[in-house]
């Protein structure tokens, strides 16, 4: 740690987005700005799946940036996303993490809000026997719960703190929308369960990790050994126009030795499973991609890794930690075998995932290296220095794309 200069004096390295200065992962002032400019602006943030709140009154809490919100289905079936803060004296109105409600009653003084956040009632608003009460000019309509702009597509709910000037579809862009619709094709989704982990690193390291196909063949011995993800397979890294969203697309390969595995220490040719059921992937989507990992600015990863499907929501806590909240899902029309397969393959994902624990540990170890070297700079030059889509995995282009967008948003 060196003495922290004011944010204003932070200067991005001359090399541009192929370099990332370590202070973006440590500076509390940078983090505070991110809460406003990245998580609190007009972008569409992932909130939850529609199927989590199927009926009117059903609600679920979620965290957008560092704000607690409640996603609730209104009586008319529309979904409202409300900031969980009473307009009176700021208490959290909703203490349950999920449930069903007819209205929200703040426990402190029982100010009551409808499912759209409108202030319905204030006990003793008119006083009692002529004494006390709210001023006559008090306007309840100005004191509702803060309500966000909401949109949803094929069962996935997004919200925005600002007034987005584009639809979700245009926000994602055509290419990303295609990949989005590949998994969210309109079929009814079914939640299989949640996992959550608190990772002691900056939240951006999570995005870097998923936007980085280069590491997959090298770090994930399990993945590579069983051919689930191999750099020598046909693959692609694609972004939207801005660089903020991306997908990694890959195909399954065999557990074989070749000129690529020669450069992959991770590859263990002799390793076999005792119980083969752990790895029994079945093709279920059109095309031959077996892995599609989509990163959507600013808080979502859509994971399709063989037959495990999950939303990974990023919830930043401070410059040095974030929560990763996983929602595993399938489709209502899954066969019992496919259902079971998804549960089994979940062994590879989540906080104990035989693949993804490598990643959470990598983030821990990265932040450890960063924390005491925040005067140093990361080098992001694999695949060149440009931000372009690539038909291969030997590139960090999507990380550069992310920082290109980040810098413009953060004015850095």
């Amino acid at each position: 740690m060196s003495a922290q200069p004011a944010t204003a004096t932070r200067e991005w390295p001359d090399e541009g987005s192929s370099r990332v200065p370590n202070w973006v992962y440590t500076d509390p002032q940078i983090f505070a700005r991110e809460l406003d400019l990245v998580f609190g602006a007009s972008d569409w943030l992932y909130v939850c799946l529609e199927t989590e709140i199927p009926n009117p009154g059903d609600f679920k809490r979620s965290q957008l940036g560092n704000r607690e919100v409640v996603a609730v289905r209104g009586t008319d079936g529309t979904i409202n996303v409300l900031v969980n803060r009473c307009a009176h004296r700021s208490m959290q109105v909703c203490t349950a993490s999920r449930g069903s409600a007819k209205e929200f009653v703040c426990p402190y003084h029982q100010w009551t809000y409808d499912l759209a956040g409108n202030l319905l009632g204030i006990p003793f608003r008119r006083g009692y026997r002529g004494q006390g009460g709210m001023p006559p000019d008090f306007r309840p309509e100005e004191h509702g719960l803060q309500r966000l702009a909401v949109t949803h597509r094929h069962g996935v709910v997004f919200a925005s703190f600002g007034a987005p000037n584009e639809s979700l579809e245009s926000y994602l862009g055509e290419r990303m929308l295609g990949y989005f619709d590949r998994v969210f094709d309109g079929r009814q989704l079914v939640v299989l369960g949640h996992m959550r982990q608190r990772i002691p690193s900056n939240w951006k390291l999570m995005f870097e990790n998923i936007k980085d196909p280069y590491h997959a063949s090298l770090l994930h011995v399990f993945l590579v050994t069983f051919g689930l993800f191999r750099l020598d397979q046909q693959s692609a890294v694609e972004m939207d126009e801005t660089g903020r969203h991306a997908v990694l697309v890959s195909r399954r390969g065999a557990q074989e030795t070749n000129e690529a595995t020669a450069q992959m220490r991770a590859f263990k040719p002799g390793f076999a499973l005792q119980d083969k059921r752990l790895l029994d992937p079945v093709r279920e989507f059109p095309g031959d991609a077996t892995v599609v990992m989509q990163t959507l600015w600013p808080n979502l990863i859509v994971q399709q890794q063989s037959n495990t499907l999950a939303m990974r929501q990023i919830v930043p806590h401070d410059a040095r930690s974030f929560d990763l909240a996983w929602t595993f899902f399938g489709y209502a029309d899954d066969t019992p075998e496919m259902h079971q397969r998804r549960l089994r393959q979940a062994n590879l994902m989540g906080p104990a995932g035989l693949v993804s624990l490598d990643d959470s540990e990598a983030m821990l170890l990265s932040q450890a290296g960063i924390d005491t070297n925040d005067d140093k700079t990361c080098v992001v030059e694999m695949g060149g220095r440009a931000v372009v889509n690539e038909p291969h995995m030997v590139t960090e282009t999507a990380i550069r794309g992310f920082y290109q967008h980040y810098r413009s948003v953060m004015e850095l």
Partner: protein
Amino acid sequence: MVAVAPGMEVGLELRARLADLYCAYDDALNDGALERWPELFTEACVYKVIPRENVEQGFPVALIYCESRDMLVDRVVALRETALFAPRIARRITSGICLRAIEPDGLHLTASFAVFQTMQDQPSELFLCGRCQDRVVDDGGALRFAERLCIYDSTIIPTSLVYPV
């Protein structure tokens, strides 16, 4: 002492044998002797680590979801051979082992567990706590877990769950 639920009559010898099994389990994990861990299960065992939240809502997904002793072995080998993780030491303690029912499919028990974790050059910390829901059977003369559900109280795992609990 393994306790028994009100109304049950259970001999002291069985209590002792169960205590031995539960102790051997913690011991295998605390010694870092993961290789001994699958031996405490039957071949067709079920082992899951699952947040209380999922259990309460009826969601089936588990962090670890093993359907056989072989899958336990696979996990141990994978941890040993393939996983990257920062060094850590786990210490598991068990309390309140209670035999709740003796059914045709085995002995049904519950117990509380807590796992303390020590990262390199850091103080020891509480990592997880929760409840085990177990089914134990006599498997050729030895008591073994036919089913062990480790239901942890928090929704949050600190960083990663590397070792089984």
